[in-house]
């Protein structure tokens, strides 16, 4: 099955190269994120002629865009920037410099503004504002029905808790800001370098930065300690790439600005573009000594970079603080809310509408009652001759106040407390702690937890997320012989796992684990010269740079694959020691030799190979080449005896999802070299199409190669990735891999992490495009006949339920989703000529929009039918776009996980963003909502914490609505017996404290601690997760069930005491059928009923649960007896009027019988119904809970199955072990990095070499 697909694929590949124009190119990244339309135009390969014409017209009519360099910076001249033309008016008259200072400010409040601003912020929330309005209503004497404190006390509590939380957050921000702002670096002041805090740095300051220090602002590099003022920086914070990049100053500044005094006198003027967010672009000029010099991004050190391998460097600040590129790039953080949040809001609105309806109904009732009875009840005469309708109107507001507790004031703050607690549980979870990097899981956002239990789609980055981004040398094939399995010295297979001992090699780094003792034997004995030749090639054919620090060799490679190969060679005794512009020194089994490098034929994505031409000490010239098997095999000498054996080895490696490279060499005669070198020199100075010319020349010499063998590198997956993916798949979560990597690599990783299997049918961009095309035509036809244009077809794209996967590149995505065309349209629409034309254009645009939407919807439908989707070669923007598409058309909850700066956009777009922490770069983590050290913790985060959070939150909300309805509606029933007069059924203090004290703690604890099944069982049965995805536990239906439950409870709570009070008297004949006793009876029944109800709802009983339930009840009785005591009445006679009610009423046995009966009638039907539904329709978790003990025993005996390694029959082509970056060949060839000019430095280098050797020998 697969082979046919593979064949199709290779056919397609040839087509692709043949017919480049009409098909998207899989190899190149689409356009960069912020490319302007001009750039897009120049890249656009083919547009329909009609569109071309329109575009051209548009361009002609457009005014020429002038690159204006309005940003002026003068070095060492602070006054320059204070000039009036650089001031901008902010408020009405307040002038401010347009240059930002370097201090950063992320905090929101200071001690003075905290209270007013925080209150303002809080009252912006609808709920708080609503209660403020209520408070004001309560102050109006005509309508006040509840004492002011019934609203004020809870409101103050809610505001207080939120304010404390905000305060803690803000203090943390203050502390972080201070930490950053108070870092120091050297700045020239009064002609000397002085230690200065970051926050005091201004634009135009000249700085000196030391090795390993962070760059405080965007700086123009002037000079450095290195030759040519080269400066190495690590940009991990910016783009997540850990390999070093180099920056180089202008020659003129390099020459004249080395000394402190010269730097102090420097008065250059920099004119450049205004601050923007494009990390890789910078244009400007330096005007100095009446000369101007062009500046580009290579001369700029960006804030957030780290200086590496450079003792010190000097620079002048161009952008500071908020103007820096990293700050401009940080983007607006989207405010994320959970699905439950919005659902909750709608429910609160529903309740609010209900409240108004009830109040209106009761107001009408009151009007009617006043007319019928009230008017003739002389005892009610209060001196005010209001008409019944007016009284009804007043009562409407009165009831709004009385029934306000239906809208739960403490809901929002309780929800926040619960989420905060759950976030702490995530932070404290030791099973998500990654000891190797000392990183714990962290919930950076505390408001999204329950959403973790509802994830439908996961969008994962590949490098650094699924993989460790560590390449290790695993196996090799030399001269047709495979090495790398478990074998002893004589080549016999072994089962023991003893590692190879590299101690004979003093340069070994001790990090390579290798188990084939036979290979070592072969190398050391030197029996097979090919083996030594193989590792020699690895040591010589590369563009790695070496650095010696603390007597250790450190390799800096452009791609981790290459680093792995050179490191492997080093461990096997072929150590790359140093290089100059045209020599390379290698220690071959302890013997140091220096070779002349005649040429480096660098890697690029078309060539997929690299070569070096070296002259050996004996004068022989040899070309060493390594590259992807497909390109190497095409260039082999026809007579290569080991061709087939190596091919087999390559297939084996590919099956084990290893990344392979072929190694080969060729001897070149001196004459041949001379002839080639001439062409090479010509090509390298060519002014036009230099790259193509060079490729042509390289092609000429890289042929008739002799195959030496193949290497296999493992792109190490993070631990537990396949298991995690299969677990998540069982939980019905779909996983999409979005990567900037090449198609082959991505596919390879798809196989190794078991997203793709041998049975999977893979669809590529072309297939998708064709499918979508037919679909769209069908839809158009149907729309034509049906006239209903936006009708959606739901039939699946694929007939059978076969296992399918989609692999699509960024270019195809753009093509399919019509993204590029949209940009064009925008451009041309700016210049409509006539009204008619304008109309037409609007029409076309509308049609295009509809078309595009249809196409996008179809694509998402198609992609969602596939079991796995891999998008490769996608830009950060496309990653975000894909997430956005699924969000938009599937209405599903998405999660994006990544580690690098290129994932930031997608992390911010998805409902939940997860960052892998502990890597060098922090960008992804900084913008994420959750972070942890390893991909595998995702299953615990989702299946355990997410699911629990969801269950808890749902339970909490259901109960919360229930308890408030049960509480409030008693007033409603009571109004039928008090003339709809807004009389409350409880004491005011009870109303005040009910939500705050008597019923809050148990439900909070359930929201924090409840769990239906343990974490182990949650992980073992991922199917439990599905209820969250389907919103089964909290939705409108559940809400109404809670509502009805609340209504029934309130009915019972009211009518059973009502019945008991109809005709009764006390034990001693006193008549306790008074209002106050009634209020105590209902309140006691209610407190007992709701507290026992939460006891029923609790599925995970702990001591604290029991304590909180009985504690709440005890608290209720305790407080009530206190408030009803004589003492408090004497102190505050007007606030405490229930004097003696509790002791007098509650000594009557029949009132206790009433309370017990009401509580029992409230609870027992619930028990019965739950028992029946659990027996008849048990849910998944019920079943598991029932068999808990059985599973526990099983778990003790259960051992994780060893992951069965599949060895398919496929001929899957492997990826080749290069990243898509260029190597350092240019840099090496230019010689700028090489310490050749400075003799003393070379000597130092030599000394350090000697040191290493000595150290190794003595040890």
């Amino acid at each position, binding site marked *: 099955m697969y082979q046919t697909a593979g064949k199709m694929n290779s056919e397609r590949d040839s087509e692709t190269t043949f017919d480049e124009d009409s098909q998207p190119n899989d190899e190149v990244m689409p356009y960069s994120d912020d490319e302007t339309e001009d750039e897009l135009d120049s890249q656009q390969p083919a547009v329909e002629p009609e569109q071309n014409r329109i575009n051209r017209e548009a361009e002609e009519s457009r005014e020429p865009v002038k690159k204006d360099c309005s940003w002026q910076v003068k070095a060492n001249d602070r006054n320059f920037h204070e000039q009036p033309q650089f001031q901008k008016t902010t408020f009405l008259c307040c002038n401010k410099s347009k240059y930002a200072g370097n201090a950063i400010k992320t905090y929101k409040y200071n001690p003075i503004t905290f209270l007013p601003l925080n209150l303002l912020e809080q009252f912006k929330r609808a709920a708080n504002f609503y209660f403020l309005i209520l408070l004001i209503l309560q102050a109006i004497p005509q309508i006040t029905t509840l004492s002011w404190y019934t609203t004020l006390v809870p409101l103050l509590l809610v505001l207080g808790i939120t304010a404390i939380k905000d305060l803690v957050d803000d203090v943390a921000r203050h502390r972080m800001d201070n930490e950053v702002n108070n870092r120091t670096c050297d700045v020239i002041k009064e002609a000397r370098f002085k230690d200065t805090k970051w926050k005091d740095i201004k634009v135009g300051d000249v700085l000196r930065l030391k090795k390993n220090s962070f760059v405080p602002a965007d700086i123009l590099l002037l000079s450095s300690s290195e030759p040519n003022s080269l400066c190495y920086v690590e940009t991990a914070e910016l783009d997540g790439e850990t390999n070093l990049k180099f920056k180089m100053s202008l020659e003129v500044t390099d020459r004249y600005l080395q000394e402190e005094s010269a730097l102090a006198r420097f008065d250059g003027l920099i004119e450049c573009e205004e601050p923007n967010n494009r990390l890789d672009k910078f244009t400007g000029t330096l005007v100095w000594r009446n000369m101007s010099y062009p500046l580009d991004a290579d001369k700029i050190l960006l804030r957030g970079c780290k200086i590496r391998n450079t003792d010190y460097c000097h620079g002048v600040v161009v952008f500071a603080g908020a103007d820096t590129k990293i700050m401009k790039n940080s983007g607006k953080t989207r405010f994320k809310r959970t699905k439950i949040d919005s659902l909750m809001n709608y429910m609160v609105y529903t309740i609010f509408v209900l409240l108004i309806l009830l109040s209106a109904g009761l107001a009408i009732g009151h009007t009617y009652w006043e007319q019928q009875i009230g008017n003739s009840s002389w005892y*009610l005469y209060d001196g005010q001759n209001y008409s019944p309708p007016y009284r009804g109107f007043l009562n409407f507001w009165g009831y709004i106040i009385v029934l306000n507790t239906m809208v739960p004031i403490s809901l929002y703050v309780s929800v926040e407390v619960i989420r905060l607690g759950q976030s702490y549980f995530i932070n404290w979870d030791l099973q998500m702690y990654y000891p190797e990097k000392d990183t714990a899981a962290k919930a950076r956002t505390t408001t999204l937890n329950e959403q973790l239990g509802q994830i439908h789609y996961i969008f994962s980055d590949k490098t650094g997320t699924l993989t460790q981004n560590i390449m290790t040398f695993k196996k090799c094939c030399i001269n047709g012989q495979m090495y790398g399995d478990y074998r002893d010295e004589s080549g016999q297979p072994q089962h023991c796992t003893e590692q190879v001992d590299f101690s004979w090699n003093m340069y070994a780094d001790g990090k390579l684990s290798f188990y084939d003792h036979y290979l070592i034997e072969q190398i050391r004995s030197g029996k097979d010269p090919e083996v030594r030749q193989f590792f020699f090639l690895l040591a010589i054919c590369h563009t790695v740079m070496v650095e010696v620090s603390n007597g250790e060799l450190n390799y800096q490679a452009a791609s981790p694959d290459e680093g792995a190969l050179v490191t492997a060679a080093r461990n096997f005794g072929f150590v790359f020691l140093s290089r100059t512009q045209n020599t390379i020194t290698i220690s071959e089994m302890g013997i140091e030799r220096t070779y002349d490098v005649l040429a480096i034929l660098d890697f690029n994505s078309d060539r997929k190979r690299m070569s070096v031409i070296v002259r050996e000490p004996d004068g022989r010239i040899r070309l060493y080449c390594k590259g992807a098997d497909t390109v190497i095999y095409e260039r082999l000498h026809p007579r290569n005896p080991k061709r087939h054996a190596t091919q087999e080895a390559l297939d084996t490696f590919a099956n084990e999802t290893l990344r392979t490279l072929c190694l080969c060499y060729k001897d070149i005669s001196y004459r041949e070299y001379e002839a080639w070198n001439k062409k090479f020199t010509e090509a390298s100075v060519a002014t036009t199409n230099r790259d193509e010319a060079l490729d042509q020349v390289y092609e000429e010499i890289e042929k008739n190669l002799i195959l030496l063998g193949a290497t296999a590198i493992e792109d190490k997956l993070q631990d537990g990735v396949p298991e995690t993916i299969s677990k998540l798949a069982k939980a019905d979560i779909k996983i999409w891999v979005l990567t900037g990597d090449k198609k082959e690599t991505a596919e390879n990783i798809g196989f190794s992490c078991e997203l793709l299997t041998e049975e999977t049918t893979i669809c590529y961009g072309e297939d998708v495009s064709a499918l979508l095309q037919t679909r769209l035509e069908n839809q158009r036809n149907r729309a034509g006949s049906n006239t209903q244009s936006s009708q959606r077809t739901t039939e699946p794209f694929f007939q059978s339920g076969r296992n399918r996967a989609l692999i699509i590149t960024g270019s195809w995505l753009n093509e399919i989703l019509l993204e590029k065309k949209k940009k064009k349209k925008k451009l041309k629409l700016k210049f409509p000529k006539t009204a008619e034309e304008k109309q037409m254009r609007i029409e076309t645009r509308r049609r295009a929009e509809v078309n595009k939407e249809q196409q996008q919807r179809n694509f998402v439908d198609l992609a969602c039918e596939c079991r796995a989707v891999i998008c490769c070669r996608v830009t950060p923007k496309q990653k975000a776009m894909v997430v956005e598409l699924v969000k938009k058309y599937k209405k599903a909850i998405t999660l994006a996980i990544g580690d690098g700066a290129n994932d930031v956009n997608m992390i911010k777009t998805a409902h939940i963003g997860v960052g892998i922490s502990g890597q060098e770069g922090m960008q992804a983590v900084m913008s994420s909502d959750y972070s942890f050290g390893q991909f595998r913790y995702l299953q615990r985060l989702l299946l355990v914490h997410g699911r629990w959070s969801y269950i808890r939150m749902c339970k909490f909300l259901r109960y919360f609505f229930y308890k408030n309805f049960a509480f409030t509606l008693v007033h409603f029933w009571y109004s039928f017996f008090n003339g709809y007069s807004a009389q409350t059924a409880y004491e005011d203090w009870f109303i005040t404290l009910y939500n705050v004290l008597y019923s809050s703690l148990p439900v909070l604890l359930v929201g924090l601690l409840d769990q239906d099944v343990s974490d182990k069982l949650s992980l073992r049965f991922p199917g439990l997760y599905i209820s969250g995805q389907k919103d089964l536990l909290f939705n409108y239906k559940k809400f109404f069930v809670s509502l009805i439950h609340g209504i029934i409870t309130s009915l019972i709570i009211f009518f059973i005491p009502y019945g008991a009070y109809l005709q009764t008297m006390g034990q001693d004949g006193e008549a306790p*059928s008074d209002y106050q006793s009634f209020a105590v009876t209902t309140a006691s029944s209610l407190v007992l009923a709701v507290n026992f109800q939460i006891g029923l709802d609790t599925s995970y009983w702990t001591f604290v649960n029991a304590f909180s339930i009985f504690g709440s009840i005890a608290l209720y009785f305790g407080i009530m007896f206190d408030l009803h005591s004589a003492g408090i009445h004497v102190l505050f006679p007007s606030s405490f009027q229930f004097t*003696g009610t509790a002791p007098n009423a509650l000594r009557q046995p029949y009132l206790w019988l009433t309370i017990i009966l009401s509580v029992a009638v409230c609870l027992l039907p619930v028990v019965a119904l739950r028992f029946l539904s659990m027996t008849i329709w048990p849910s998944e978790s019920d079943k598991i809970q029932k068999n808990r003990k059985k599973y526990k025993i099983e778990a003790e005996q259960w051992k994780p199955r060893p992951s069965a390694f599949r060895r398919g029959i496929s001929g899957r082509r492997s990826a080749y072990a290069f990243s898509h970056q260029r190597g350092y060949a240019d840099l090496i060839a230019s010689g700028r990095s090489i310490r050749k000019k400075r003799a003393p430095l070379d000597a130092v280098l030599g000394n350090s070499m000697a040191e290493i050797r000595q150290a190794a020998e003595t040890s």
Partner: protein
Amino acid sequence: LLSAGIALPLFFALGLAGLAVGLGLHFSSGTIRELELDYTGAPRSNHDCARCTNASATSGPCLCTLRFELAEPFPGPVCLYYQLSNYYQNHRRYGVSRDDLQLSGDPWGLRVANSLFNDTFTLHRLVNGSFMPVPLDSRGISWWTDSNVKFRNPELVNGSLATAFWGTAKPPNWPCAAYLLDAGNPNNTGFVNEDFIVWMRTAALPTFRKLYRRVHQGNFSAGLPHGTYRLDINYSYPVLPFKGTKKVILSTVSWMGGKNPFLGIAYLVFGSACILTGFVMLAVHIKYQQQNQMDED
């Protein structure tokens, strides 16, 4: 709690307990003797009090009498209640018109509830052809906390309560000023008058009873023997305008208070419902357990 092992016994046990309590309540409620006498005097009823309904408060008291037979003795202590219906003492407007600061002893700006129930009753028993007064005890009819904490008279001025109340108006519907409520007894006059306190303990529902007097003194300490009685009513409280009724009730009390048919029946219903549900649950449990076992096999 929801496992069969707990839920089923719970239901049966609660059901039995409910039945037991229900029976107890029902029977003790049944032992209570209660007599209701309606004296509203509705128009067209040939009640003696009907003639008083048109008398206004200002025209002075109107006396009417009621004769009734007790077929069987009422064991003591016997309580005498008055009952009003369709009277919304729980109306919010009624509730807010009281001023608790005043009631605890601050006389200035007095606006005491105007509507104090001011009918008075005396009870006589026909003994040997003549009516002997039955002593009615008005002490201890209110809660201790009410008469001793909540309701306080203002500080005496020159040893006189009247002076303390000086400057306050008599509530328009009252026959006399507050300090004259029980002029003979300084501990029962003014705000601490127990009838006033009982009245001020507002009722929960529009039909309510309030304790008027107890019979537990002298010859009647063992209760009211059977025989003929006469109730003299000083009728002055108008209820007909709002279609209310007035009743006098004689009742004995037990451990659970007065007659209360509701609670006993409610418990009986609850107990039987519990047992019934218990059987349904048992049946379902057995059926589905078998099914589950079959599924597992």
